[in-house]
């Protein structure tokens, strides 16, 4: 198990390095960094001076390693728009997004796994159809539209929940539901198909041949094998959710990373964009690594691979 974990960790590190390179190139090849830094209306001499001052006239490889070295120490330079260190900005906004992401995933899992299991136990029943409807609607409906619908229903009409800002935990309910609903269909369908497959398997028949109670056939023998792929999917979905937080945070005026990215893109604030993209990618890589390890723990066959 330890050897497997080490192997996975090394792999994750390599992926992280590749991602950092892509992050760096994306910005440096798509815009002229010196022009962006100089701001609008700068003369050619000013731009050239900045290019020289910040070492932007050196080969890209040298610039990359320098940037990487700083980034590894948490130094992403200063924001061009906010005029504060990027690291501080990100650190300030991060908790909001993490809470939102975790709550959204929690909501998605709580809704989709039980629904998927019940749908698999009673295929073609009304609850299976309901689950299918939820999945289809969830996939067809744009996130922001669903968010607006929730805001209108629970905020404007019923006055049950706040719809803007992030001061209390109640502020997080609607954004989490709106964001988490987006991840529900995929997780539910995978749970359902996984359960259906596992329930037909020979070892479930063996478990029933031992006279085990339905609950232990279901939870001990079936669910554990059926959810192994769900763990990996949930990690991937959380990555998507963090990406989706740009829209949701903007709609609900939650001051998180997504909102920050939205502002930074609008103002051509490339150090911030770079940092946010890199950070979300890293979170994503770590999640995938954790999912792999969880899978190995759930399925002993993987451990020796």
């Amino acid at each position, binding site marked *: 198990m330890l050897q497997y974990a080490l192997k996975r960790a090394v792999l994750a590190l390599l992926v992280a390095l590749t991602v950092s390179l892509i992050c760096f190139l994306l910005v440096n090849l798509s815009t002229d960094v010196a022009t962006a830094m100089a701001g609008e209306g700068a003369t050619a001499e000013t731009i050239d001076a900045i290019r020289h001052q910040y070492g932007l006239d050196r080969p890209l490889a040298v610039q990359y390693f320098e940037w990487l070295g700083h980034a590894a120490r948490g130094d992403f330079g200063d924001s061009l728009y906010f005029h504060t260190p990027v690291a501080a900005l990100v650190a300030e906004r991060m908790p909001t997004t993490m809470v939102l992401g975790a709550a959204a995933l929690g909501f998605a899992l709580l809704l989709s796994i039980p629904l998927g299991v019940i749908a698999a136990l009673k295929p073609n029943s009304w609850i299976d159809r309901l689950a299918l409807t939820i999945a289809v609607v969830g996939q067809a409906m744009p996130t922001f539209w669903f968010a607006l619908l929730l805001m209108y229903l629970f905020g404007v009409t019923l006055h049950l929940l706040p719809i803007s800002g992030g001061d209390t935990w109640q502020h997080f309910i609607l954004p989490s539901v709106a964001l988490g609903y987006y991840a529900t269909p995929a997780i539910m369908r995978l749970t359902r198909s996984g359960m259906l497959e596992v329930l037909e398997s020979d070892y479930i028949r063996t478990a029933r041949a031992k*006279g*085990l109670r339905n609950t232990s056939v279901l939870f001990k023998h079936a669910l554990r094998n059926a959810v192994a792929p769900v763990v990996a999917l949930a990690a991937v979905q959380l990555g998507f959710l963090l990406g989706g937080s740009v829209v949701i945070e903007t709609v609900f005026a939650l001051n998180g990373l997504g909102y920050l990215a939205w502002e930074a893109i609008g103002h051509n604030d490339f150090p911030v964009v770079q940092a946010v993209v890199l950070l979300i990618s890293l979170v994503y890589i770590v999640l995938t690594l954790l999912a792999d390890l969880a899978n190995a723990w759930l399925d*002993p066959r993987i451990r020796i691979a």
Partner: protein
Amino acid sequence: MTALLQVEGLRVEIPTPMGRLHAVRGVDLALGAGETLCLVGESGCGKSLTALALMGLLPRAARRSATRFAFAGEDLQRAGERRMADLRGNRLAMIFQEPMTSLNPSWSIGNQLEEGWLRHRGGHRAAARERALHLLERVGITGAAQRLGQYPHELSGGLRQRVMIAMALMCAPALMIADEPTTALDVTVQAQILHLLKELQREFGMGLILITHDLGIVARVADRVAVMYAGEIVEQGPVAQLFARPAHPYTRGLLACIPVPGRLAPGERLGTIPGVVSPPIGTLTGCQFRNRCAEAEDQCATRAFELRGLGGSHRLRCRLGNAI
């Protein structure tokens, strides 16, 4: 001898895209305590589905019916899933045909052996573990203590099958159904396992229904034999009588390639009979074996044949019989 199992008119039907498959069609079985019944027949004739029907473990799509289903004096015909679950693994156990996939990959061997005991007997895990260890040794697994901590993927097919056998024996069942339990094993292990099953049978008075392709095994362990064809029992009787005077053309075909009945080389397989089985789908009339039978007549296509006695408990489903 009190009857342990009495089943009459057992049917299993499965809807398929081609029509309703009559996989088991009116099977009668009776078994006393300590008795061994061998169920033989070609692949696909419904042996496994018969066994699964007795256990209440049929696939979801399959429908079971019977005119009589009694086990140890209890009428199980209307028994609910809860009652069946109380019996399964406790008084009624089964070894499956598929040793490679019948163990859960996520739990250790020990855990999977113990849970049946814990479900039916309760008590401490230590007692269950002791029993598991004892049985693993009995089925000829060396280093049993280490095996308890291993996972199915670490075991070969033969070992897995022995674990399955030990698992079925955990609560010392009154009736054991073994579906080709030794097919995956080599000949010496095969002999060992059969010996063990017989020994445990003597020890506990366990009834044994053994499904096999191997007529050598039948000759060695069976008290009675039932020959199945296309979902029906076509001939049934005490092993000596059936081997000495097979009455059904199908049974004779099976035994044809065996030189000395009753004294077979181990590993001897069923003889091959020319022709193919047509699956019993839709409305069926007459004898299903007729298109492969050298002695078929016009009436074989239309008449309904019942099992009738030939003397003793030897019974036959064919127009022939008296001529032999």
